[in-house]
């Protein structure tokens, strides 16, 4: 507790806002080791408990502290096959439940430590493809997002022949096509894919699999196609030009950076626009950062729920995930944020283009039956000027038919939209289920 927490920090706003490169900076090794030394190696490590993957933070942080990077990598990769993803974009449940978060509001920089371990490992060449004895059984995975990738790696280790199908041109799912490059540069995924391919995992891209007619020739199937349906806002004016789903823009931007070109009609860009982001979550925040980089005039973000408390929320005490106001790097880059606003209708400029949104302030009253509070409109309406709306209101939990017994679900496809780390955990879990199922066949 004598060493203060030191975040690696971010590139200066004026610099980073001009490009799509990663915002986060890195510490040098000795500072990183010092940060890792802050871990108290708790008798009951809440970080480890909070982590869906069950990462053993105290163990690898101790290794980092002692400069045993390779050991740290081994320990980390034992529970997490993609630390380079989570090390960048995980909201770090571990840090929220770190004992130091409770005691001095300055948890160990677990996520950054994680990231530095894997980057160190790549740099030093610890990450090498392995070969595993084949067991002759084949598994198809539909959806090469984090859950699918995670399942594929695990099954491949166990000797299964794994083929990943994805409708997109490359692997990663939302990690590749949802998350902006300034949070996670895509070479990170490519680097991992290369290893996976060398380990014998097959990818079949640009392939839309009909879930009712799964490809033949596999002993088992995993469906990990995520949550294809974003939650829509069915209010008057939805059809107006300028109203998009967040992912429409985010995916396009990612594809564009990957070299794909779009016609002007296809293009969804905030350049020169006044943007309104509806939805106060992480996707909304990603939209904000992307809009800035595209050259938006202004960005406003509204959220239907009330503003969460700043700093500490007694309703979600440690070691739970704190429901508190979260300010991302994108918010720092400039954005007006408002809460308790519901959208009533999109306004037409007369030419089929959006010119604003009518919003209404709402109140939330406690639900007498418990559970989620009840929303009450106040009648206090106003119009927000904008010529682009991005809907970032989450995704609908997919529904699935009854599949055959050799078909398994994983990730968001199974649980609904959630964190990358949960998808990864789900992938590992399903791999174990598949293995248990096939071992006895």
């Amino acid at each position, binding site marked *: 507790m004598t060493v203060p927490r030191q975040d690696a920090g971010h590139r200066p706003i004026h610099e980073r806002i001009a490009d799509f490169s990663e915002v986060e900076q890195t510490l040098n090794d000795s500072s990183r080791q010092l940060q890792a030394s802050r871990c108290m190696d708790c008798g009951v490590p809440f970080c480890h408990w909070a982590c869906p993957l069950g990462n053993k933070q105290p163990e690898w942080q101790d290794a980092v502290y002692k400069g045993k990077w390779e050991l740290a990598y081994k320990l980390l990769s034992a529970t997490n096959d993609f630390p380079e993803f989570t090390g960048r974009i995980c909201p770090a449940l571990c840090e929220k439940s770190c004992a130091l978060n409770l*005691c001095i509001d300055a948890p160990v920089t677990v996520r950054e430590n994680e990231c530095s371990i894997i980057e160190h490992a790549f740099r030093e060449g610890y990450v090498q493809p392995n070969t595993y004895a084949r067991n002759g059984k084949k598994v198809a995975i539909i959806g090469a997002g984090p859950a699918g990738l995670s399942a594929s790696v695990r099954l491949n280790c166990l000797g299964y022949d794994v083929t990943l199908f994805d409708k997109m041109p490359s692997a990663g799912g939302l990690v590749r096509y949802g998350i902006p490059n300034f949070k996670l540069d895509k070479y990170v995924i490519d680097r991992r894919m290369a290893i996976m391919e060398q380990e014998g995992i097959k990818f079949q891209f640009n392939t839309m699999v009909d879930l009712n007619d799964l490809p033949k020739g596999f002993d088992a199937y995993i469906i990990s196609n995520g949550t294809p349906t974003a939650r829509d806002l069915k209010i008057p004016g939805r059809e107006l030009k300028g109203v998009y789903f967040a992912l429409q823009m985010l995916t396009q931007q990612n594809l564009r950076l990957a070299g794909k070109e779009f016609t002007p009609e296809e293009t969804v860009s905030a350049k020169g626009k006044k943007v309104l982001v509806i939805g106060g979550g992480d996707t909304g925040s990603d939209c904000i950062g992307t809009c800035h980089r595209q050259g938006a005039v202004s960005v406003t973000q509204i959220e239907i729920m009330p503003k969460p408390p700043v700093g500490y929320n007694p309703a979600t005490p440690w070691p739970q995930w704190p429901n508190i106001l979260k300010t991302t790097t994108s918010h720092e880059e400039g954005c007006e944020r408002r809460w308790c606003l519901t959208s009533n209708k999109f306004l037409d400029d007369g030419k089929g283009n959006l010119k604003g949104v009518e919003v209404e302030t709402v109140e939330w009253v406690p639900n007498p039956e418990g559970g989620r509070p009840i929303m009450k409109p106040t009648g206090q309406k106003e119009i927000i000027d904008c010529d682009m709306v991005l809907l970032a209101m989450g995704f609908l939990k997919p529904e699935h038919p009854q599949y055959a017994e050799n078909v398994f679900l994983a990730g968001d496809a199974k649980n609904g939209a959630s964190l990358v780390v949960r998808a990864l955990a789900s992938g590992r879990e399903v791999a174990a289920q598949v293995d248990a199922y096939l071992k006895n066949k």
Partner: protein
Amino acid sequence: MIKTRGLYDPQNEHDACGIGMMVDLKGNKTHELVDSSLTILENMKHRGAEAADNKSGDGAGIMLQIPHEFILLQGIPVPERLKYGTGLVFLPKDKKLRDSYLDIIREEVARMGLELTHVREVPVNSDILGDAAKATEPFTAQIFVTGSSEQEGLETLLYKIRKHVEQRIDDGDFYIVSLSSRIMVYKGMLSSTQLREYYPDLSSPFFTSAIAMVHSRFSTNTFPTWSLAQPFRMLAHNGEINTIRGNRGWMEARESVLTSKTLGEVSDIHPIVQPNMSDSASFDNVLEFFVRSGMSLPHAMAMMIPESFNEKNPISNKLKAFYEYHSILMEPWDGPAAMLFTDGRYAGGMLDRNGLRPARYLITDDGKLIMASETGTIHVDATKVIEKGKLQPGKILLVDTDNGQIIRNDEIKNMLASECPYSEWLSEGRVELAKLKSGRKAEDAVQDYTRRLRAFDYTREDIDRVIVPMCQTAQEPLSSMGNDTQLAVLSDRPQLLFNYFRQQFAQVTNPPIDPIREELVMSLTEYIGAVGMNILTPSEGHCKMVRLPQPVLTNTELDTLRNIRYKGFNTEILPILYEKAKGAKGMADAIQDLCRQAEKSVEAGINYIILSDRGIDDTHAAIPSLLAVSAIHHYLVSVQKRVQTALIVESGEIREVMHVALLMGYGASAVNPYMAFAVIDDLVKKGEIQLDLETARHNYIKAIDKGLKKILSKMGISTIRSYRGAKIFEAIGLSQELLSKYFGTASSTIGGVTLEGLAKDAERMHGQGFGADTPDSVLPFVGQYSFRKDGIRHAWTPEAISTLQLATRLGSYKKFQEFCSIVDDKKEPLFLRDFFKFKTNPIPVDEVEPASNIVKRFIGAAMSFGAISKEAHEAIAIALNTLESRSNTGEGGEDSERFYNNVDGVSLSSKIKQVASGRFGVTAEYLVNAKEIQIKVAQGAKPGEGGQLPGFKVNEVIARTRNSIAGISLISPPPHHDIYSIEDLAQLIFDLKNVNPEAKISVKLVAESGVGTIAAGVAKAKADLVVISGSEGGTGASPASSIRYAGVSPEIGLSETQQTLVLNDLRKEIEVQVDGQLKTPRDVISMALLGAGEFGFGTAQLIVLGCLLMRKCHTNACPVGVATQDPALRAKFRGHSQYLINYYTFLAEGVRELLAQLGFRRFEDIIGRTDLIEIDSTKFTEKTSHLDFSRMLTKIDGALFKTQDQHHLIDDVLDRKIIADSKSVIEKGGKVDLSYDIINTNRSTGAMLSGEVAKHYGHEGLADDSINVTFKGSAGQSFGAFLMKGVSFKLVGEANDYVGKGLSGGRISILPFEGTKYEAQDNIIAGNTILYGATSGEIFINGRVGERFAVRNSGATAVVEGTGDHCCEYMTGGRVVVLGTTGRNFAAGMSGGLAYVWDKNHDFDYYCNMDMIELDLIEDKAGRDELRSLIEKHYAATGSKLAKQMLDDWEHYVGEFIQVTPIEYRRILQEERMKALQQKIDSVQRDY
């Protein structure tokens, strides 16, 4: 004979007592001597005990010379004196049976060519007996055997006859009390006052003797049988043989080499040790055997209870050689012992090496020697006394009544040492390992390193948390909080066999030793080789041994031993492996083969056998080394070939101290942990330990040695030789079958794993390393010491912790129920109680007694302020005081402000005041502010161990509450230095009860097998409450291995306690409290059904206050401000007393609901109702299905809960009179002078008076010399205990042990009887352990005292004229002046205060333990002035001649004084001086 019932096992009985002896030096036989010795016995009544019927004694007896005249007067035709044998025989009441036994005796007598001439029915007075004694009363006959003319031969024949009869009659109702031509014994299940009445013979004026030896017994339970009363055939023993299991085993093993000239073949008298008797009886058997084999009595005694003879002991080299020679032949019988012995001609006494029992003697000018546990047991005219003394540790005092001579220790020992050229024999025969040079060097690295690591189940924790710290610090690693993991038998991971075992430890009935401060009595020296045949004949040949300084061998040393071809040594390696494919059968066969091979090796003359698992490979798995060693050890014992060889274990399994201890405990002489060495080698090569290999390995071995000493000392054992094979462990979760076949243990507490299970685990472990795949070099981390999702199960999970904190913070009962379900409904059982199911019979909840009643049964477990923060400590006190329950100060005392301060009308004072071995802050004021005074005998996490609060943690406030100085280390000794034995505990209870008659006295024990019998002893010592602490209990800091391996589950300990107490009908008088990982209402009900009436909560309580179970308490870095003294961290404390109130209230509510389900309205109705427990067999796995709960759940009929109070016998103590006589002074002040006569049965004089004063005036007390009392006579124990300021006691006469215990400001002076003839400074005037835990006050003693003077003194001033061993031990403050010689080990562990010692022989430094002190001449004036004024005071108080002499020639004498200054104290003095100088400098500068 009471049989094993439930968990109660008569094997566990302990006893202790008072002993006495009176000898006429000239051999004049008188009845007066018989009569006086009975008086001595009667005056030691308080050292014996009585049963629950308050009438049956535990046993009393007397040994006398055969009263020839008396026998003649009975009209019995006997030949002349010494030409016939006689003795009492206990026979069954049934006449037919009795006659048949007498016929057997007659036959056996005839077989030896003698004649049974007469059988006399001994008159007895049965009316006086208590019920228990009456129920087992035998028919007592006296038999007379004649027919031999040769006296010595007659004794031998009589011995043989007795042994033959014993061989033929196996009946608990039959017992030959004695059979001799010289002595006879009268004894029985009597109290000491009943003996005289029961046997009218003893009152006959014609009954004469020149020697009389008496004994009064205090047994830990009430099934003492008539035969177990003492004296036995040669001795009376006060104390306990800790190593008895090993000694008995080795004696049996040794029988084959004990052929003697006089006795012939040993098989003829087999077994030497009579089965099913007490430790003392076994000792007596062996002693008698040696004496009958031709060894002299003192020789046999010196061999069996040798002095400590390492370099710190001032005895001659010749004598050291004597001891070393005999140590090869026999391991010491170790434990506290005051032994009185006689063979009818010689009579004497002796103490153990540590002098742990008192024995005082005096010699009169008319030729009488009186020796007893206490002085003053009989009135002797002071003018007739020519010498007063006490027996010294390891020393003998002997009288030869034929020659009328007293033979002193030095004379005897010199005689013994000169009998044979022992030194020469040793230097010829005995080889020292270090001196063997083979020129070979063995590698530490091994092939297939990773495979082997995994096959021996190494984890990363083993390496990082055990081996690395051991290499770096040469210490075992520390940890904190309790052990909340699964028992080995419940775990689904493969287990090392070691994990099933738990260390046993000494509590109450014998003291643990301090292996650091009292290292002089410890020894790890081992001898390996074959003991030759006929060891009774002294011979050089017996020394052909290799001496090992300690038992861990390096690879090179093992290699040397393996290849030794020197002086005819030879070795054999037996692989402890089996073919994995053959499974359990293969393992069993392999073990059998090993046993046979070992036997063959012995026959072939192999000196030592190396058991090795180095050969493990793809197909061969290792047999657990412990199993192999134990199996071979027991097999060789059974074929009488054990002592002819030694076992060395070379195993990859060994890594921790516990492993080494277990192997030694089951028979190994040395071990080689080659995998641990390989790990160290690897770590060094990788640079992870930055030491060279040599040093790292050396440190590791040193850490094991230290740890071993600690484990030995926990059991009160000082040498590894007596520990080896002593099996001082208990197995939890191994099946009966396995234990009896391979471990020589007859019973298993809860059954468990069979050989099949062990083989399965061995196979799994082997597969980890030698499976198909190349194993990963990164070893698993299994979560032994910290929680891991995929690791070993812990009871405190993150969910449980956070839910409980949330529930209590929000005050949400619903959340609390969520917490309970997390804890109670876990999938896998963690504790034994998790298998319980309750029989239900629901009634409405509102019929059950209210929560406010139930909550009073919940007690805050002891946690000292010092270990936890002020905030946390006070929050606990407030919460429990609000609930009208009780919190506990812990051992660190309590700031006296808290006695009187309130918060919102709630007292801040903890209602339970703990008294632990450190006696920190235990003053009269502290004690009178208690509702309960708890004597902490042991702590769950580290039973039998002391503790140390390092100086840097002792801040001003802690120093104040502990009556010490900030910055000075505070050491808690492992034992209470006033509890070495059960009667000592009774005395301490009596002391405390006197100080505060209103307070309940409780005794805290730790669960182990045998705790039930100890609890029974505690009940008989008149405690009001006994706490059974589960081994899982928490701690602020303790060696990690103690947390894991000492003590057993609370379920087992509690259940045994309840069963034993009920069986004894003692439960009705004593409440039983339990603690150890209790959390939920279900836990409370489970424990109540097993017998508990109160429940302690420790860890749960801290968690409610914010503890996150970081296990960082020992680092002072607790980030939530609970277990730290750092003000910055304390500021982070977020707990509140209300949270605890919520917790306890919820708990009580939950208990009510469960009571309703069970169908009971009152809590007490379920106490002890084990019949309401069912075992939930759905929770069994393949491994646990062999568990057997039937012993644990046996319900004994009788009173199941407490209904009545103890009789404390404090109604007519002398203090009542003193208080009445000084009433006006106590109430109004003023001054009073009083005087009284005093005798040794006036115990704890001054304690009650001090309690009264403290109640009125607090610690301030009265004005100096307000109450002045002069006593004349021999004061009983604890004279002036806790004496308050303003009270001055002057004792003219003498005193026993514990004078001025806990002195709280009073003044005591002791001077000899008027008219004494001897020089005061040469004689013992007061006993052992004086000023223990004194905090302030003064004491002046005109004479010498016994062992441990001023132990743990923290502020009193003392002047004395000579002391025994260990003077000023653990002292932290005050002044001690010794005007005379001291014993060994002066100032051990002394961290504060000063001592001045008159070094008249200029050898004082030899007697000092220099670890923590420096010696100087007194050079500064302040020191000289202080010393002079103290001696002046001494002179004024006692009129000491010596003091006068010194004052008259001051300049001469002052130059002969040595000043003893603790180094820490010196540093602080210097700092203070610097500070003062600085201040002065500052002020000087201002003046300019």
